[in-house]
């Protein structure tokens, strides 16, 4: 192809600029005008017009916009301008409406003037969908796969983009079809379920209805957090015991543990402790040395990068993804939304090393790596594959502008993980010494790094306990200094963090690598979960939502349904199974749920305001200051709907009670009032106004503290 005019569609303006720089001969020979970038003479002699799509230009919507009706099955794709103007009627404002309209017009005009069209959006299902909709709706073609070409690249470097334009392929309608069906499934489930919940929890006198949303991925994700909290609340600890003894050898004191720790019977633990307490010596019965090698960590896929960034820098998965996206758009790293742990041989690794050496921070590391005779020439590969992209790796491009601190951290993590994949294994020697004392066996373990390997480049691993400077011989005696018996209890199950929830979602195959972080952020934005010292807690409203939905249609909160849907979408993408099959299968799961929601609607509504104020039901505020045994609870009267506070022992003997403010979200603070010892509470009005006060309505200290 030469001297042809070609329309190139990029997903975002930054990517469009990078593509334009790569397609022009010297990186500057292009002009930008009215959201279009013209390259009159590209690197291959063609005339390119590059346009960006601003994400989705077309969205699914309900043409009737009757928000008090569900289920809605009559849906279609509309330009975002139309969807946005409908949303404005409902108080939502989308700032880029005019710009989207202009983009659609420009793409439509240029696509008619051009001889070919190239979809250069991100090479994944979402990119294929954006490209398909933007180009097909702008200028209908007879055959998508033959008339619209696809540029496939994993980095925004000049070499990668030019290579992909030299080897343009036909578009894949199966991937676009799967993407469109995913949007359809999300809309059908998300919009209809949210409408059903919102309507059933609203009352005619409500000025503004309580917006309750739940989707096919949101539901199971929230239920994981809620269920974990339930496990914690009903947790009954069971005891276990650890017996250990302090040993002295060559002036070193070591702690040896009973070989069958933990012990589940107190009598056994006490007997071992009693026997060993009376002994002065232990005999070394076995010295075992085993050496093993630990291979480098696998190259990063998105979820692993998000988990590591959370573990090391406490960055939320959403922040990590957005930083990785920025680094990709600056052509510093490869495409981050990948599931792959493989780095294919086609990547110019040596060239990347040479380029990275120009950065002072990596110069020494790379010198060591390249001079290491045991280095790998082919990087270590993980088991996971992604047909579209390799694992995340640095392109070798140097940051032109200064990176922000968090960007630097994530970039450094990616570079180090990449270098680690070429490093030799860590050779570790494990030493286990077993002692016999008082007719029981105790052991002590240590590990020593014999040969440093990949940990030099990726030093974010746990260290080993080391006592290799003490030598032991079988049969020799060591001094027993003391013996101790420690009682422990099974701890409460840990709360989810954003990283562990992400892992759970991945394990359960719900959501996609690109959407999981957003789902967690949405749960937080909707105030279904809250963060406390990095732990995720369900709010009262989140808990009640799951309990209510589970009572009506448990399949919405279970991962099985959404997992099955993902598998069907995969079948469309890989095997090209038809959209009709998918829709009919989805509707067969969808209809019974909607029927249940409709039939249970009255019961939902009949609960006297409890559903609307889900977040306030029987909230525990703190210990009762009078009976000292009960708990003060915030209760909504089943008869009047009014709130009040009373002791959980009210029905028995404690008559402690108080009125409560009718409005505002009441939360316990966890400290007593200095005057009357009732629990202090915070009352939240709207988004920002918060009062901190005593829960006792008659307390003299009830003054508003901002």
């Amino acid at each position, binding site marked *: 192809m030469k001297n042809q005019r070609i329309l190139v569609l990029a997903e975002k303006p930054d990517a469009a600029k990078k593509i334009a720089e790569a397609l022009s001969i010297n990186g500057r020979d292009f002009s930008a005008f009215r959201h279009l970038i013209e390259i009159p003479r590209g690197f291959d002699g063609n005339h390119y017009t590059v346009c960006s799509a601003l994400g989705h230009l077309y969205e699914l919507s309900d043409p009737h916009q009757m928000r008090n009706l569900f289920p809605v099955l009559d849906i279609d794709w509309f330009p975002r301008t139309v969807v946005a103007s409908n949303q404005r009627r409902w108080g939502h404002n989308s700032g880029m409406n005019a710009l989207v309209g202009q983009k659609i017009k420009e793409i439509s005009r240029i696509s008619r003037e051009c001889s070919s069209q190239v979809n250069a959006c991100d090479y994944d299902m979402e990119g294929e969908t954006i490209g398909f909709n933007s180009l097909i709706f702008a200028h209908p073609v007879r055959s998508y796969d033959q008339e619209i070409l696809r540029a496939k690249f994993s980095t925004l470097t000049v070499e990668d983009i030019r290579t992909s334009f030299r080897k343009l392929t036909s578009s894949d309608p199966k991937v676009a079809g799967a993407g469109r069906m995913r949007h359809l499934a999300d809309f059908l489930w998300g919009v209809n379920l949210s409408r059903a919940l919102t309507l059933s929890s609203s009352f005619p006198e409500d000025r503004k209805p309580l917006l309750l949303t739940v989707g096919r991925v949101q539901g199971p994700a929230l239920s994981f957090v809620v269920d974990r909290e339930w496990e914690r609340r009903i*947790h009954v600890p069971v005891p276990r015991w650890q017996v250990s003894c302090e040993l002295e050898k060559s002036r070193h004191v070591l702690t040896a543990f009973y070989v069958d720790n933990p012990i589940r019977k107190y009598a056994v633990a006490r007997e071992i402790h009693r026997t060993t307490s009376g002994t002065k010596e232990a005999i070394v019965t076995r010295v075992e040395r085993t050496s093993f090698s630990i291979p480098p960590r696998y190259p990063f896929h998105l979820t692993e990068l998000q988990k590591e960034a959370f573990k090391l820098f406490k960055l939320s998965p959403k922040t990590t993804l957005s930083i990785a996206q920025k680094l990709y758009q600056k052509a510093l790293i490869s495409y981050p939304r990948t599931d792959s742990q493989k780095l294919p041989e086609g990547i110019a690794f040596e060239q990347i090393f040479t380029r990275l050496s120009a950065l002072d921070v990596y110069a020494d590391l790379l010198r060591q790596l390249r001079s290491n005779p045991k280095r790998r020439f082919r990087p270590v590969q993980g088991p996971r594959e992604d047909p579209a992209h390799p694992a995340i790796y640095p392109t070798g491009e140097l940051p032109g502008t200064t990176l922000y601190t968090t960007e630097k951290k994530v970039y450094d993590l990616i570079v180090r993980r990449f270098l680690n994949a070429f490093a030799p294994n860590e050779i570790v020697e494990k030493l286990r010494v077993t002692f016999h004392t008082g007719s029981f066996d105790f052991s002590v373990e240590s590990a020593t790094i014999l040969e440093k390997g990949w940990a030099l480049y990726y030093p974010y691993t746990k260290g080993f306990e080391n006592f290799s400077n003490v030598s032991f011989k079988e049969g020799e005696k060591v001094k027993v200094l003391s013996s101790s018996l420690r009682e422990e209890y099974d701890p409460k199950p840990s709360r989810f963090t954003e990283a562990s929830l992400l892992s759970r979602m991945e394990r359960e195959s719900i959501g996609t690598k690109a959407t999981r972080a957003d789902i967690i952020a949405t749960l937080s934005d909707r105030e279904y979960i809250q963060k406390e010292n990095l732990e995720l807690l369900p709010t009262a409203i989140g808990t009640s939502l799951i309990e209510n939905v589970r009572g009506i249609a448990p399949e919405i909160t279970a991962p099985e349904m959404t997992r099955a849907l993902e598998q069907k979408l995969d079948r469309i993408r890989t095997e090209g199974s038809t959209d009709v099959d998918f829709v009919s299968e989805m509707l067969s799961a969808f209809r019974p749920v909607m029927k249940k929601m409709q039939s249970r609607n009255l019961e939902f509504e009949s609960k006297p305001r409890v559903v609307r104020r889900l977040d306030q039901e029987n909230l525990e505020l703190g210990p009762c200051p009078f009976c000292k045994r009960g708990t003060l609870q915030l209760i909504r009267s089943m008869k009047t709907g009014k709130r009040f506070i009373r002791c959980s022992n009210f029905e028995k003997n404690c008559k402690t009670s108080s009125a409560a403010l009718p409005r505002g979200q009441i939360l316990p603070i966890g400290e007593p009032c200095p005057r009357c010892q009732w629990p202090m509470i915070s009352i939240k009005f709207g988004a920002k106004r918060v009062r901190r006060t005593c829960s006792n309505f008659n307390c003299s200290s009830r003054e508003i503290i901002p």
Partner: protein
Amino acid sequence: MSQSICRLCTRKVDVGSDYCVSHYRAYSQLQKKYPEWKSAYENISWERYLETIMELKEIGDLAKALAAEELRRSKAR
């Protein structure tokens, strides 16, 4: 007080129980773990078990409330 109200809160009781669904879950957990305590401490009594677990910081709040209620009922008998 109607029999259909949970002994520890104002919710309706679960079928065949004195507690609502939430508190019944905690009650089941208390009963499920009792054999493990009996095995650990060689026939610890139900009351002693309840008294002991109530003092532990690892216990969940619903389980603790249930333990207190069950202990009170047990002593009242």
